[in-house]
Structure formats: C-alpha cells, structure tokens
C-alpha cells in the first residue's frame, strides 16, 4: 500500500499493521518508490525519525531501521544537525541490484506458474522483453530511461556502485 500524495499533506507513507510485510519495509519500499517516481526529488528533506514514528504511531526503532536501510541502499543521506534528505545521485550497490533482480524474477516465476506457462516459454518471454527494452533504450526519447536516476538503467559495467 502506498500514498504518494496524501490530500493536503504532500507526499506521505501508509503503514498497515496487519500486513505480513514488516512496517519498516513498508516505509522503505514506499519512499524508494517516491524517489524513483520523482515525487521525492534529490535534496528533499525527510522528517526526523521521531516525528515520523510519532505520526505513524510506531516505535522510533522501526522508522530508524527503515532510514538505515534507505541510507545503506544509497537512497538518502543523513547528516548530523541537517537530518535526512534524498541523495543527490543514487548509488546502487551490487547487493541491492542482485536483491531487487531476484525479487522481480521470483515474482515473475510465481506469475508464470499461476498462468500455467512452461519454463522455456517463460524464459523466451524474458529474452524477448529484454531485447525490446534494449532497442527502446537505444532511442534518445525513451521515457523509461529519462525517468530513471542518473546511472540506473545503464548496462552493468558502467553502473555506479
């Protein structure tokens, strides 16, 4: 669940205590989505851990863990007396890339199985999608490419780490 824009409140996050996803992960995932979508631009200040924890009715440790994960992933930077802000240029770590790739692949595998698609057909669909994407990203007006942060979406060896 996400709340990119809360009416009258600007960008915001929603946490469902009944969800199987831990609250810190819900917060992390929504902030990542907003940074990727540009709702939270580079330099945007995030609330303090205590403020967000109070507003969400969560323990400060929960929000602190979400912020730590965001910082470790290069999404935000924290400075003493300046608080936490969205990183100017997101640095994608190899571990983060592998983790996200694995999550996407796993979700795709689950979908393919539910649709009753065989392994070969599923892999062929991925190959086809990758080829289409490579052809599209070669075009300068590619909307997906322009929406990604600097460096992301480039071929592996050039990706900042």
């Amino acid at each position, binding site marked *: *669940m996400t709340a990119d824009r809360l009416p009258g409140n*600007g960008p915001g996050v*929603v946490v469902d205590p009944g969800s199987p996803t831990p609250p810190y992960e819900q917060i992390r995932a929504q902030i990542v989505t907003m940074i990727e979508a*540009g709702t939270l631009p580079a330099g945007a*200040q995030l609330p303090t851990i205590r*403020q967000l924890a109070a*507003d969400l009715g969560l323990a400060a440790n929960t929000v602190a863990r979400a912020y730590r994960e965001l910082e470790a992933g290069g999404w935000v930077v924290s400075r003493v007396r300046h608080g936490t802000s969205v990183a100017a240029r997101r640095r994608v770590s190899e571990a983060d890339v592998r983790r996200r790739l694995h999550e996407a692949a796993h979700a795709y595998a689950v979908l393919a199985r539910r649709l009753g698609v065989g392994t070969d057909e599923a892999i062929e669909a991925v190959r086809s999608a990758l080829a289409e994407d490579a052809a599209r990203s070669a075009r300068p007006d590619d909307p997906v490419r322009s929406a990604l942060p600097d460096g992301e979406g480039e071929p592996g060896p050039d990706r900042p780490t």
Partner: protein
Amino acid sequence: MSEAATVVLLLIAAFGVFLVDVYGRGPVSRQRLDRFARRQQLRVTADNGNQVIRYLATTRRWRVAGLIGGIAASQIGAPAGTIVNFNFVAIFAGWFLGALVAEVRVDHLAHGRVRAASLRPRRPEQYVRPFTWALVPATAVIALVTGAITAVADRTGWAEPNWAWAGLWLGLAVAVAVTVRLIQRAVLRRAQPVAAPDVIEADDAIRSRSLHVLSGGGAALVLFLTLNLLASLRPTAVGAQQVVAALVLIGVFAVALLGWLVATSMWPPRRPGTDLANPAPA
C-alpha cells in the same frame, strides 16, 4: 506562618478547588474560540471545532490550577508577620508550570487502523517567527552572562552578592530554559497522522499557539529569575543599589510586556514543505 496567614492559605485552596472545578471544567466561551481563530487565522469548521475546544479547555484547566498553586506557594513563602503575600514571580511560575503540564497533556490526533503520515518535516519556522523560537535560548544566555557578571563583581569587590540566592536563581533560570526547550521540541513532534485538511490546519494552529505561549511565558520566567539574580547582586558603591533596584523594577514591566506580546502574537502556520518538489531550505 501565623494563624491568620494559614487561614488565608486555606481560603486560597478552597477558592482554587472551586475555580478549577467550575471555571476550569466549564464550557469554553465563544469569545475564547474566536480569539484563538483570529490569532491563528484559522477557519473553524464542524470537523475541527471540537479539536480546538478540547485544546482550549485543557490549557485553561491546567493554567488555572497552576495559577492557584502559584498563589498558594506565594502565601506559604510569606515572611513572618505577613498575613497576605503576593510574590509575583511565584504566582507567574505557578501559572507557567500549569501551562507546561497542559502542553504535555494536550491530546494529539488519533491514529486509524491503517497508519498514514506526511513526509513533510515539521520545522519551528512554520509555527513561530525565528525571533520567537530563539527567545528562550537567548534568555538563558542572558541569565548566564548575568551570573558571570555577578561572579566578576564579587571578585573585584564591586559587589557582595548573596551567593545562596544568586546560585538558586541562576540554576532555576537555566533549568526552566532547558525544560521549556525540551517541551517545545515535544510539541513539534506531537503526532500528526493524516487527516482532513481543516483538521490538519487546526492541529498546526494548536501547535503554533502552544509554541508561542511556551516561548513568551518561558522567556519571561527566565528573565524574571535573572532579575532576581540581579537583585541579589548587592553592589557596594554608593547609590549603586538604587540603580540596580530601578533596573529590576523597569525590567519587571518590560519582561511582562515582552512575554505577553510574544505569547499572544498572531501567526498563521505556514506549510512550505507541502510540495517536496520545491523543498524548503534546510
């Protein structure tokens, strides 16, 4: 304490209980609500009206209780032979203590089952002028400088301060400043879950009014204690004691005026961070 003074104290206590019970728990007047709305330039609606009334009722109850406590404390500290004693600083300190307790006890907006919160950071400048926010630390510095002057005057023989009292006033002034700052920060952090825009506006208005009262009242109390510190200086030069006494007298009125002006000043909360695509300066 004489028997007559004890009777006065009991009368104050009885009157206080009556006042807190009848006035403190009674309905909030329309004028009071209008005054709050005018100062904060808040549009009171059917959805946020009760929220503001609850805040006004809580602060009024605790401030009245504090005021009565201050009057009682003033009477308890009455010099021997005095039947009725009004120590202005004790009475004001009692009122302000009630105001502090009220800010701790003010209800915040309730959380729903699904928790939602804005990612807009809450900054002091949204709720008070920079001057107002800086006032309490500035008065703490004034208290410390006055303490240093007292020490230098003692060393050079220019004054013979009563260090028992001077130390007490200085310690109290710093303690009050620190306490007020901590509570101001707690007010800024008070939970603000996502709600309808008019409810959020009322919540911001309440936060702003709380910070104004804490800044004005806190700065005034620190400065009153600093004036007490100054009064315990006891300069040795001929005529200097009269100069200090005149300064203290003028200071009491000036500080009371400053505190009142800050606490009651108009200031609609500003929300520069609503659009994070144009973030407010850090």
